[in-house]
């Protein structure tokens, strides 16, 4: 009896980056249109659809459950930003929410059998770069260009290379941490599937039924928990670094 291919389980462990769907040249630069971008669109469609669904028919009184959820979400993220960054950075709330939603849904999409958006290092690097730009912009906003440049020679000019390094290390570390956790998690899950399949074949089971329940338990940590944690850590670091770029004195805002 021939077993259909999709029931046979993975025959090899695939550790590779996203597929390139098409590429084109722009100003002499090869631009790849990859799987990740399509997945991003799917994630965005889910988030925007959810948001539009939640904020339909907003009312001041007699609110629906959907509206309660939307209000709770907005207030929760606003409170988080206010508590972490202070009132003066409250305008960052939508950006923090964007990264948080994008990260969580981009990671959780792996539960649907798709590639996680966040297992593409370029995505995390982009978000980390945005954070880096915001940190730098905040430093310049509060200290001026001179103050920003002087900060590199702080406390003594000899520290200049180390300061530059730490400045670059911040976004790099953030991107690598997030990428490493999600991609690592997906590799481990792939290994588990692969290993369980091999085990089933070893004990002469044609259909790898061991892969039905056991990976779900591990998936709770490597997918669900890790996805939430990494999204949360990423936004927390973003908030802390940006608010630390401002003046240390919080008394003025009270």
């Amino acid at each position, binding site marked *: 009896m021939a077993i259909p291919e999709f029931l046979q389980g993975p025959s090899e462990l695939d550790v590779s*980056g996203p597929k390139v769907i098409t590429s084109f040249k722009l100003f002499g630069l090869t*631009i790849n249109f*990859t799987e990740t971008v399509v997945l991003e669109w799917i994630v965005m469609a889910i988030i925007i659809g959810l948001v*539009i669904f939640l*904020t339909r028919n907003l009312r001041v009184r007699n609110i629906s459950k959907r509206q309660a959820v939307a209000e709770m979400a907005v*207030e929760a993220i606003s409170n988080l930003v206010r508590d972490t960054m202070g009132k003066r950075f409250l305008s960052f709330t*939508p950006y923090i929410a*964007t990264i948080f939603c994008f990260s969580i849904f981009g990671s959780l999409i792996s539960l649907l059998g798709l590639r996680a958006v966040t297992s593409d290092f*370029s995505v995390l690097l982009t*978000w980390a770069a945005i954070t880096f730009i915001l940190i730098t912009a905040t430093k310049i906003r509060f200290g001026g260009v001179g103050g920003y440049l002087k900060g590199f020679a702080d406390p003594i000019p000899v520290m200049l290379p180390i300061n530059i390094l730490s400045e670059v290390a911040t976004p790099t570390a953030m991107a690598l941490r997030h990428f490493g956790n999600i991609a690592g998690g997906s590799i481990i899950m792939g290994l588990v599937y692969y290993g369980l399949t091999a085990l089933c074949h070893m004990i002469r089971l044609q259909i790898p039924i061991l892969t039905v329940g056991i990976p779900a338990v591990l998936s709770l940590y490597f997918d669900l928990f890790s996805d939430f944690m990494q999204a949360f850590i990423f936004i927390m670091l973003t908030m802390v670094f940006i608010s630390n770029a401002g003046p240390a004195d919080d008394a003025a805002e009270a």
Partner: protein
Amino acid sequence: MKLGFLSIDIGTILFTLCNTLILFLALKHFLFAPVQKILSERKAAVDQTLADAEDARSRAEAAETEYNEKLANAKEESAEMLRTATRRAQQRSDEIVAQAREEAAGIMQQNRDELERERRRAASALRSEISGLAVAAAEKVVEREINQADHERLIDEFIDSVGDVQ
């Protein structure tokens, strides 16, 4: 074709940048703006309600003060009325008693006068009877006809003297 596992792809970066911006704008427009508008509207409504309640409370307090004042005034007025009425009644009763006393005194006086007249009448009747009796007795005693007029004069003198003695 697949990219490397840890590849840095400029195309993905550019697309991700645009997508993130689009999602940011979408969240701002579809989630934060409307929800925050509703939240601030609700806050305004709650503030309005609180202000209204405060207003109503102060008005109720003013009404209560006014009511208490009116009540106190009414009480005082009623007490005043009671006092006036009592005083008037006292006055009236005094008047009535005085009048009654006067009337009673008048009646007593009349009675006394009447009694006096009666006494006088009786006395004069008695006097004439006594004089008649005396004349008769004297006629019997002296057994002779004497001048009636003289006798009567004599007897009157006698009675007067008797009356004086009495």
